[in-house]
């Protein structure tokens, strides 16, 4: 991943006509919110995810990950390959909380 240099903006945030377009459907996060997050200083997939919850919904970023990546890259004037990915975390699929609490605690090997 490329080294990111963080500096405070001197220009104001510029809105765009398609800013109201939803990008992360599960968490209903718009393109404008992602662009603004980058403006606010978030510059990697993981940072934007923690800031906005994009990619943290039902599909776990399956649908929006590449889209968010492209938007961040365009804002940062970088290549998508330089923006990084969301760190995969368990559970990689949504799990009902009832099942989660049903964790087999016997972790001794049989």
């Amino acid at each position, binding site marked *: 991943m490329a080294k990111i240099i963080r500096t405070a903006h001197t220009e104001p945030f510029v809105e765009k006509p*398609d800013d109201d*377009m*939803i*990008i992360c*459907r599960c968490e209903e996060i718009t*393109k404008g919110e992602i662009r603004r997050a980058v403006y606010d200083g978030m510059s990697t997939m993981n940072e934007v995810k923690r800031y906005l919850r994009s990619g943290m919904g039902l599909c*776990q970023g*399956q*649908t*929006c*990950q*590449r*889209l968010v990546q492209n938007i961040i890259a365009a804002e940062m004037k970088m290549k*998508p*390959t330089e923006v990084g*990915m*969301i*760190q*995969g*975390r*368990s*559970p*990689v*699929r949504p*799990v009902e909380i*009832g*099942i*989660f609490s*049903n*964790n*087999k605690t*016997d*972790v*001794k*090997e*049989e």
Partner: protein
Amino acid sequence: MKRHELIVIGAGPAGLSAAIEAKKSGMDVIVFDENSRPGGQLFKQIHKFFGSKEHHAKERGFKIGESLLAEAEELGVKVELNATVMGIYENKEVTVKMNGEVDHFKADKIIIATGAAENMIPFKGWNIPGVIGAGAAQAMMNLQGVKPGSKILMVGSGNVGLVVSFQLLQAGCEVAAVIDAAPRVGGYGVHAAKVARTGVPFYLSHTVIEAKGTDHVSGAVIAEVDSHFQPIPGTEKELDVDTICIAVGLSPMSQLASNAKCDMALIPQKGGNVALLSEYGETNIKGIYCAGDVAGIEEASSAMIQGRSVASHVCYSLGYITEEEFNTKYDSYQEALGKLRMGMFAPANKGRNDFTVTDEGYPISKNLLAKGYMTEEELENFPAYNYKKAGVHPIIECTQNIPCNPCQDACPKKCIKVGENITMLPQIDEEQGCIGCGLCVASCSGQAIFLMDETSDPDGVLISFPYEFLPLPEVGDKGTALSRSGAPVCEAVITDVKKTKVMDKTAVVTMRVPHEFKNSARFYKPV
């Protein structure tokens, strides 16, 4: 916590093949899949596959899935279904959501074979109901028996977009257009041609800019794009559709590898974020492997071989096979993969658009790439199209170097030859006598073979073509012969309909048309 020698995650072609290979050597292996049925993508695929006989070519996808499953069951491979792997932890501990609880397993080796997920493109209104992924459309039609809509816009002209368009037509939907932002059809020309000849228009260098509607799609606005893929103002066109189907590629579903802290990289040729692998498919974490689409988007044929190849390394490293046995297996799998990965659609050539001639030196059809069908003038460059003789004989309109050769095995008279290298174009062996059985027509996965008979019927030429729509025409029916672009050409009379078990549901229909239309009539529409 249960311990196994090998845990395979995903029961698609890659995972099942890996499990089969490992189990054969005597290893203790368990497979987890989150679906209620094994087979991965294969169970949605009702079309005949490309590849060669060893890779189950010309078999329909779901049949390949069934035979893999039968082989796994016979060997006693344990396949846990409805079992979602949630995470991979240190020391190869795996958590699995199954039977309403979170269970823990440990293994010496793990093969991740979780396949891929569909890409999406955002546009105005893309979250209105009726904008669906091509995979969803397939699952609705082919698994649930539900029509996804009645008038469809297909976005994406790769193989998935083309195959699903054809399946939508088979399900009785109207496909209003296939569009692609790229200036050329992305999938195999033969797949495009079989869609185009039903009359579906192709708009290359076009993208969808808006889905109309409030609670469901009631139309789609498309527009031409410039060389930077930006819509050109003034070129907008509104299409009357109720469904927009998105088929713009797949991304490896590699979250588990990332979760296991494998070194990852975004590699466009592999379709997205993948774990970095050794030549044996092992990640930087010893004992964790990836195989199939999760390692790089390819095909079921290569996923199966990769699964076996990776598993053979697991067998070797756990002492189930000797180094010599491993080397022999590995070399033969690599050779098979190498053959599949040749030709202009090879993974290494992804994104290349500078091909002007085939491996044989014939000029590549530009019309096929721009409109989905070939012109007669372009076809004349290809000997297998130009072949002429008295009586019935094949003519082949397969003009790109794709990994495919069922036509060669199908002919009982050995009239058709592809040769050792399966990406070479099929050639017709003039020495052999065609008997007009139609097996080549029915077994061609690309529906690119026709039979021509200019001499046997005094009233016209007899053209036989593959037909996979219901209801089948009947002998004596009169209808309209269509051209390669689906335009009406002339009146046609059905003179024969062949449908045997070996043809596997592809009927070979013969129509009679006046002589002057022999080079243009390629399909049939009942009146």
